[in-house]
């Protein structure tokens, strides 16, 4: 089944195993769940040793016929971009399952929760690795179901409203995407005479301008909702506030990245002409999201909502970096995805920890906690500063690269004759840079209201400091934030080739499309030999 297949399916097997253990054995469920995800993480580390960072294309491919008559193949592969996102996933899930706060204060049905988390992990890994659009879509929807239950069963008071909102929002986008996938599938057959959902083949299909725009719109809508981009973001605060801590960590840490990953992997490479037309709009929406999310975070009085809105702002950077379409900006976008996974995941751990202790998230209910919880306060501070983007911590690298990429967006394009691709890059960059002010405003405001000031509320005087497993979870997050801030190069150097290849192939496709604007659907550049069923690297 190949390494990639194992990494994808291990959590699913674990979930089955967990479900077989009798309902009452909660510690076994927890232990087994954690162990499965830990093994998955350790196995996924093997990706690093096998990964050739000098190669741009997909590596360690698994390619098996699944539904032959329809041309559906179980095709997985990893490149420098999905590599890190898979590792982010396999890193965060065991942390979540190790955290005593993962299920939240409705500490029921541990077995089902653990299984849901593991199924979710399979969905996430599979969607990151899938190279067959049908398989991608299956995994994409597979993520939705456990998340729906996680919010709907273990969530807070308005969990039903939030979970339904989450599902409907996401489904609206993904169903349109399915239509577009099927259209691509049909067009590919019309042009080449063979049926295929294979990404490596479909990504050579150039559609005429109008259908391309429509298909891009369908994909972009699905991804923009997932990111979420302004103004499609309102499901996020609700989902986060109601979701249990573990759900929030995974939602913010990994699920949102599918939006930005989708742009990188699918929406832009498949529909370059349409993407170039839409890029100004998407870039502007990203910049609006950066400022808007930050200002909304600033006025929240609920810690979890505040962090949720901060995600809108931070993910705006990722979209902006992708739209800059130069190596600096896209590398920054990839890095920002990972950094956001660490810091915002960490922030949700912290807010969940507070909720666990005090059963409230209202900033006004806290104050002066530092005196009682110095260890937690220190961890929380480092994570928070990582989110603020302090150099030396992970948040800085991504933001810095994205902003430089934005400033120099057109510079790289003018060399190919595609001038004016990016609207007013300096202005956009300057507006986006104001986020360094806003981030400090809302995060320090939150920190001060929680940790500083007089310890004047009786409920806060008995709060117990972080201990045991909590320290391990926070400690791991903090170390990750530090390492990623001080030594980002090992990550950047492995994604570099894939990012370069993404940009150059996008540029070639775009130039091809512009050379012959009225061309019918055609294949560009010429297809390589059809993949053999055995596939993969020797």
């Amino acid at each position: 089944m190949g390494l990639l297949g194992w990494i994808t399916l291990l959590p699913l097997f674990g979930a089955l195993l967990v479900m077989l253990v009798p309902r009452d054995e909660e510690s076994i469920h927890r232990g087994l769940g954690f162990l499965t995800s830990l093994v998955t993480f350790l196995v996924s580390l093997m990706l690093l040793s096998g990964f050739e960072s000098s190669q741009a294309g997909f590596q360690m491919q698994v390619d098996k016929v699944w539904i032959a008559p329809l041309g559906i193949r179980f095709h997985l592969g990893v490149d420098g971009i999905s590599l890190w996102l898979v590792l982010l996933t396999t890193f965060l899930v065991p942390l979540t399952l190790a955290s005593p706060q993962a299920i939240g204060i409705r500490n029921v049905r541990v077995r089902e929760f653990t299984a849901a988390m593991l199924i979710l992990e399979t969905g996430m890994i599979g969607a990151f690795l899938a190279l067959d659009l049908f398989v991608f879509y299956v995994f994409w929807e597979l993520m939705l179901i456990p998340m729906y239950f996680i919010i709907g069963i273990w969530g807070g008071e308005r969990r039903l409203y939030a979970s339904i909102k989450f599902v409907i929002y996401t489904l609206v986008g993904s169903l349109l995407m399915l239509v577009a996938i099927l259209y691509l599938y049909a067009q590919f057959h019309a042009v080449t005479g063979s049926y295929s959902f294979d990404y490596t083949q479909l990504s050579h299909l150039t559609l005429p301008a109008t259908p391309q725009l429509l298909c891009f719109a369908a994909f972009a809508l699905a991804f923009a909702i997932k990111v979420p981009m302004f103004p499609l973001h309102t499901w996020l605060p609700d989902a986060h506030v109601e979701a249990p801590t573990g759900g929030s960590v995974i939602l913010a840490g990994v699920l949102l990245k599918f939006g930005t990953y989708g742009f990188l992997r699918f929406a832009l490479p498949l529909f370059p002409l349409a993407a170039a037309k839409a890029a100004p709009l998407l870039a502007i929406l990203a910049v609006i999201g950066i400022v808007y999310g930050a200002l909304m975070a600033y006025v929240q009085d609920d810690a979890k909502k505040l962090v949720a809105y901060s995600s809108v702002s931070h993910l705006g950077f990722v979209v902006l970096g992708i739209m800059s379409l130069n190596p600096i900006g896209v590398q920054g976008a990839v890095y920002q995805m990972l950094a956001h996974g660490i810091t915002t995941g960490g922030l949700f751990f912290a807010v969940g920890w507070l909720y666990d202790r005090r059963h409230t998230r209202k900033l006004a209910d806290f104050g002066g906690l530092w005196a009682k919880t110095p260890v937690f306060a220190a961890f929380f501070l480092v994570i928070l500063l990582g989110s603020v983007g302090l150099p030396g911590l992970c948040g800085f690298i991504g933001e810095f690269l994205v902003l430089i990429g934005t400033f120099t967006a057109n510079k790289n394009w003018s060399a190919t004759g595609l001038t004016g691709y990016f609207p007013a890059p300096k202005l956009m960059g300057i507006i986006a840079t104001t986020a360094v002010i806003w981030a400090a405003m809302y995060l320090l405001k939150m920190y001060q209201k929680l940790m500083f000031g007089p310890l004047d509320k009786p409920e806060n005087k008995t709060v117990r400091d972080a201990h045991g497993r909590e320290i391990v979870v926070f400690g791991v997050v903090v170390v990750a934030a530090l390492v990623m801030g001080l030594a980002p190069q090992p990550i950047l150097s492995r994604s570099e080739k894939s990012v370069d290849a993404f940009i150059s192939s996008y540029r070639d496709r775009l130039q091809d499309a512009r050379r012959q604007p009225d061309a019918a659907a055609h294949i560009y550049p010429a297809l390589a030999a059809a993949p053999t069923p055995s596939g993969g690297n020797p």
Partner: protein
Amino acid sequence: MSFNLRLIPLLPFLGATILILFGRKWKRDTVLVVAAGAIAGSALVVFDAVFTALPAAGAGGLTDVVGTWFAAGPLKIDLAFRMDGLSSVLCLIITFIGFLIHIYSSGYMEHDPDFPRFFAYLNLFCGSMLVLVLGDSLPVMFIGWEGVGLCSYLLIGFWYQTTANADAGKKAFITNRIGDFGFLIGMFLLFQYTGTLNFQEITAAAAPGGALMQPLWLGQPVAFWAALFLFIGATGKSAQIPLYVWLPDAMAGPTPVSALIHAATMVTAGVYMVTRLHALYLLSPAVMAIVAIIGALTALFAAIIGFAQNDFKKVLAYSTVSQLGFMFAAVGTGNWDAGIFHLFTHAFFKAGLFLCAGSVMHAMSGSGDITIMGALRKKIPWTHGVFVVCWLAICGVPFFSGFFSKDSIISGAFGTEVFGEELAWVAKLVGILLIAAAFGTAFYMSRLYFLVFSGTETRAPQDVQHHIHESPGSMVGPLVVLAIGAAVGGFIGLPGTLLGHADWNWLAEHLAPVVGPELEVSKNTEVIFMAISTALALGGIGLAYVYYGGGYREPARKFAAAAPGFVRLVQDKFRIDELYAFLIIRPLRKLSQAVFLVVDRILIDKVLVEGVGAVVDVFGRIVRGFQVGDGQRYMAVFAIGVAGMVYFATRPTVPSTLAVSVNGTSVDVDARRGGNTSERALEYSFDFNDDGRPEVTGSEPSAHHDYGKPGEYTIRVQVRDPRWGTHSSVKRTVRVPEGVR
């Protein structure tokens, strides 16, 4: 030349890490040994580097490349350090004064339960500050730049239980972040136009006629904008107009912090950065003028506020803002040596003054209110002695350190030529502002001295008076060392040219490889300005004596009574904080709240999202009306539906793409290409004038008509199925052109 420079910041960082991890369980002495040991070790490496390795190194100084920090596309940032003449001066100040303040703090913070945390922060600060000055590129400098900002935030809010302290820390951090916004934009512009962020390479790229001279906005070149944005960063960190407001509030932190961070080191980072990028700044006289004017204005403005403050540390805080203004005026006039010179002397006398403030407040049971002090000169003699030396130094009394550095700034302002002919007035304006500020400095510092130390009686309540005592040796020792520095520090920058020995100016020689030769001022100018400086210092002291010698005297009371509104305004710091709150902070919050409510909650969530849901819901309700299980009704609806379908399916149609060809004045119309018309017998009627009277009727789907003259005509074609009577029609306009036969 390569040198292990990384050790210099690493030792304090190590100290901080150890203290954070283990310090809480340790004894105070152990904590102190680790913290002070780390900074002492760092100081030793600095001494070794500056006095042994640096003189032997070439023009590039000492370098240490740790590795690539990050790289993407054409961008590559090395984690690299460099020590040259400029950074070496700063390293000496940081490690030397940093060490003294560690010692002093061991006494000052003796009874604080958070002793280890304090020293962890101090170590972290020293490490960050050393990264700031040693960083070989803007991003590495930015690590330190933000690191010191963080430490400042943590140390201002060190006693976090008091909301005001936490607020002050937050204000410092956010104000600094506004500056950082400028710093970042400056970096981005530099990278976009030079392709590098390394100091050496920027300096090399900053040649006249290079990429940085391209016009960017408002007719100004890139260099202007990059330098201006970076300067915004400097106004944040170094507390200049308009971002100075955080520094006075920062006095909420422990006093040793005020001395080290908010006087001697961190706040001078902006001056250092501008000097480091002097080649960039020199490209644009306009931006130099802005730097110089902002500096001089800040110097005067803060000095005026200092006239009326009644808190010991607040006076010193505004004094710091003012003295930093002097430094910016110096670098803005291209007088780089003088800026760094004043940075150096100021570090000693201002740190000394702050530590005296700590000692005085220690004696006064924690109070810093100078209105209740007085006559302390005999009660705390050591502190008094140190204060006198530092006070004379800041006033600029001849041969104390401040005299030399301030004099070289003022004479440089009048002698500079960096602004060119067009902006020559700037130099004079800056010079005059500085003269006024120098006089003001002497006045408010002397007021402080007289109110605190002179006179015969202390105005404090009895219980406070009983406790007045000299501070312990650990505090007095560092004070004395700083006093010595404040007294003789000026001799590193003797006006050598004036004395006929250019090589006596050690500092200028030391800095020359980095910032070029010192600003040339004629001997006459030099002598004149020495006289003026002396007069300013003595005049300010004299005037203060008239007002405050021995306590509040008659003229002071009279003045306060004569202009109470103005005194109030100055006491309230011209209410700039209130202005910012009114203009920026409150509107921003209100706007955000309004947008959250209107856009996010109502417009997007209720109208758009739930609106879509509501539309679906309404359709659902309508459709539900039909689903009642009544078979007859179903059949009726079914029949109507079928009938409708049949009607539309069988209705004869004329294609809307009616084929019309004009030939001279005659027209041929062909309605043949209909979907369902060919197989059935249909009647066509062609009304060529659309007047209700068809010219041609029959079963032929085409017709011919000659209008006879040019013009615009409307043709109506109707098709009719005679069996069912169903019909449809299409209208079309044709134009018969003139002159075609």
